[in-house]
């Protein structure tokens, strides 16, 4: 195990001066853009192409989803506060903000579970129409990313509880944070191009 100088983000001696793992994470996020981009492309190309209902304006509940989006956005703040805490050596703050972030992620997932079951009750399933297939696949894979993020956050929280997440290891929190913020920005896009653009149709239908 290599030891880094305490309190300083000194990576190993590398050609770029950057840490291997952080470079890997950014390469992964760049690559994951194309994954979500392809899912979003599929959704947009099939938007309005469903032959039978339910259609988006019949099932979407914009105020409800706005709250969900807000919860995820807030979790980005708590995540970055957790990082600030470990970087200044504040273990209590670290644990509190990590737990808060995981909880907010959990609330978002709960909201998504409730949304999905409501849609299914209203007849929108994976098989119902193109909207169902594309919507559930896109938001489902996003939800899967959030789930992985929550597991990582909880693991970090437990590690911190056991006193195994000292200040020198702040990179672990930073990397989890990068992943978490990425999942958040993906939702920013989905919230706009999937949900918000349908809002005028809902008003029109009502």
């Amino acid at each position: 195990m290599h030891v880094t100088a305490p309190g300083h983000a000194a990576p190993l001696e590398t050609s770029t001066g950057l840490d291997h793992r952080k470079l890997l994470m950014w390469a992964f996020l760049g690559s994951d853009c194309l994954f979500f981009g392809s899912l979003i492309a599929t959704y947009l190309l099939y938007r309005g192409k469903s032959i039978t209902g339910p259609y988006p304006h019949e099932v979407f509940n914009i105020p409800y989803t706005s709250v969900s989006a807000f919860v995820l956005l807030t979790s980005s703040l708590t995540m970055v506060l957790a990082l600030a805490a470990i970087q200044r050596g504040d273990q209590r703050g670290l644990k509190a903000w990590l737990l808060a972030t995981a909880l907010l992620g959990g609330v978002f997932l709960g909201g998504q579970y409730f949304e999905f079951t409501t849609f299914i009750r209203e007849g929108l399933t994976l098989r119902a129409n193109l909207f169902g297939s594309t919507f559930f696949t896109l938001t489902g894979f996003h939800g899967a990313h959030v789930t992985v993020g929550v597991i990582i956050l909880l693991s970090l929280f437990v590690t911190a509880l056991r006193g195994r997440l000292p200040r020198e290891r702040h990179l672990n929190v930073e990397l989890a944070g990068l992943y978490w913020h990425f999942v958040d920005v993906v939702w920013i896009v989905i919230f706009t191009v999937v949900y918000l653009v349908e809002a005028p149709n809902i008003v029109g239908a009502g």
Partner: protein
Amino acid sequence: MSSARPRERAHPTPARYTAVALVLAVVTIVEVTAVYQAFLADILLPILLVLSATKFALVAMFYMHLRFDHRLFSALFVGGLLLTAGILIALLALFRVIVQ
């Protein structure tokens, strides 16, 4: 190639993070309000795209520290992002969703 490079700039303070969060919250409120304004209907799509791009950029620049970290990280991420945007726009054009 590395040793002469200047140090990465320091990450922001919690106060700065919270300020960014407030901006994000305001933008979200503007978005959700805008979609219910009938008079905005014709220009709603560009408004929404600009607002969500703003949120995206704020999170990436401040929370993900791209504004302060090494440019290679930005290159990796923005490279993937631009490629995605290019393919998405090309597909939307090929399927006549945007260009008629």
